[in-house]
């Protein structure tokens, strides 16, 4: 009974959506402006029909080729660092990041990182026991974050050199895949960016990845801290 009621709702809503939309399909080309200049084969307004016009109204149009402005709002980079996986030692982490600068203050950032968990103290002390298989020790994460350039500025190296820099804060959501499971992860942290050239940036970042885990007994909140150094380019 419940399902058939939904089927009726589904079909009627389909009709409501699609029918007014279909009327829009043909209408796109109608608002094209009519050309202001008369067509080339139109009769000249002056003189006899068999006479040639005195002035040929054909004017050579100047070709204006506008260069597109090169917009560099995207930033692509890679990073290497250390990730401390709670209960599973600290290990090297590699990652890639793609950022889009919305305004001079805010940016969106997507990161993807890979690491590998070590052994817990329990595993080491007990000798032979393994909590995780080898494949389950792979640790990958992704995060979608919003960043805020909180303290933009310049750094001075010696007397003649100044480089643009920014201290920024990021917060976001994402996923951590570890021990064969996906976990919803909240990520937050800060970073410092220095631009040795206008198209290149060096980053130092500290991130905390927080999620719920019941891997070692009871369910608890896990904080995995990460520090990394990265290089990125603007395009």
């Amino acid at each position, binding site marked *: 009974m419940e399902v058939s009621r939904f089927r009726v709702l589904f079909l009627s809503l389909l009709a409501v*959506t699609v029918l007014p939309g279909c009327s829009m399909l043909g209408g796109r080309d109608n608002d094209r402006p009519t050309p202001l200049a008369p067509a080339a084969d139109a009769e000249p307004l002056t003189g006899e029909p068999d006479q040639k016009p005195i002035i040929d109204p054909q004017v050579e149009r100047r070709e204006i080729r506008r260069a597109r402005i090169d917009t560099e709002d995207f930033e692509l980079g890679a990073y290497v660092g250390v990730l401390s996986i709670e209960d599973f030692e600290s290990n090297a982490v590699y990652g890639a990041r793609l950022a889009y600068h919305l305004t001079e203050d805010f940016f969106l950032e997507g990161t993807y990182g890979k690491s590998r968990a070590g052994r817990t103290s329990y595993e080491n002390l007990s000798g032979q026991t393994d909590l995780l298989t080898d494949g389950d020790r792979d640790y990958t994460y992704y995060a979608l974050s919003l960043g805020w350039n909180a303290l933009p500025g310049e750094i001075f190296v010696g007397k003649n050199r100044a480089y643009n820099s920014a201290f920024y804060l990021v917060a976001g959501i994402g996923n951590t895949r570890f021990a064969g499971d996906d976990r919803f992860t909240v990520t937050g942290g800060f970073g410092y960016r220095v631009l040795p050239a206008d198209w290149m940036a060096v980053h130092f970042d500290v991130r905390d990845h927080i999620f*719920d885990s*019941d891997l070692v007994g009871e369910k608890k909140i896990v904080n995995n801290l990460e520090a990394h150094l990265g290089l990125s380019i603007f395009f």
Partner: protein
Amino acid sequence: MSRSLTPLTLLCLLLLFAAGAQAKEPAHKILIADPFIELHSGPGRGYPVFHVVERGREVELVKRRTDWFQLRTDQGVEGWASREQMIATLEPTGEPLDLQEPARENYMSRRWQAGVSGGDFEGASLISAFGGYAFSDNLSIELTVNHILGEFSNSYSYTVGLLHVFAPEWRLSPYFTLGTGVIYTDPKSNLVGTIDRDDQIGYVGGGLQFYLTRRFMLRTEYRHNIVFTSRNDNEEVDEWKYLGFAFFF
């Protein structure tokens, strides 16, 4: 061995890409029409003004970052000018410079739209990415990938549907959506006796979109999903996307 090579390869690719990005295009010359233009040392309001270009001078437009334009004078001085100052700038032909600024009016002529959002899928956390193609002012087709992270299982769902925006010319505009797709459910590894499932889903929903600025939109959405399970009863699932960020081009 291959593991340790990966980051190195990535770095090499990055540097190659950087070299490509630096390839020079013919310089774009522009004419200053404001009484003068201030050049900042960086693309931001706080960076100090270190140079001034007067009216009538021709400068080279190097690039744009967010709302800042990098200019190079004929003496080779490079600095950043704000968008407000650039509005009065002219092309060498005397026409106003087209800043290629997408505005709300451009939304009507948009073709592609994409974005991400976060929310709730019957108690589980939801991360969602979507992309759409508009084939009229009101109607578009949209593809959505959901990553659903629950306490007992994780799922991926892929849906395709129609989206009808009632009044695209309004800043805050409601829309209606309808579609179908598949959902793959993978129970957590610490649960015993469960297997992966693939099911078909259908949904009806509605939402609100809000034009933010330039090419950006915010949106929030509700979907009522029906999961066509292989069991006797179908499942009904409420899906809320609390906040999403979208851009069009």
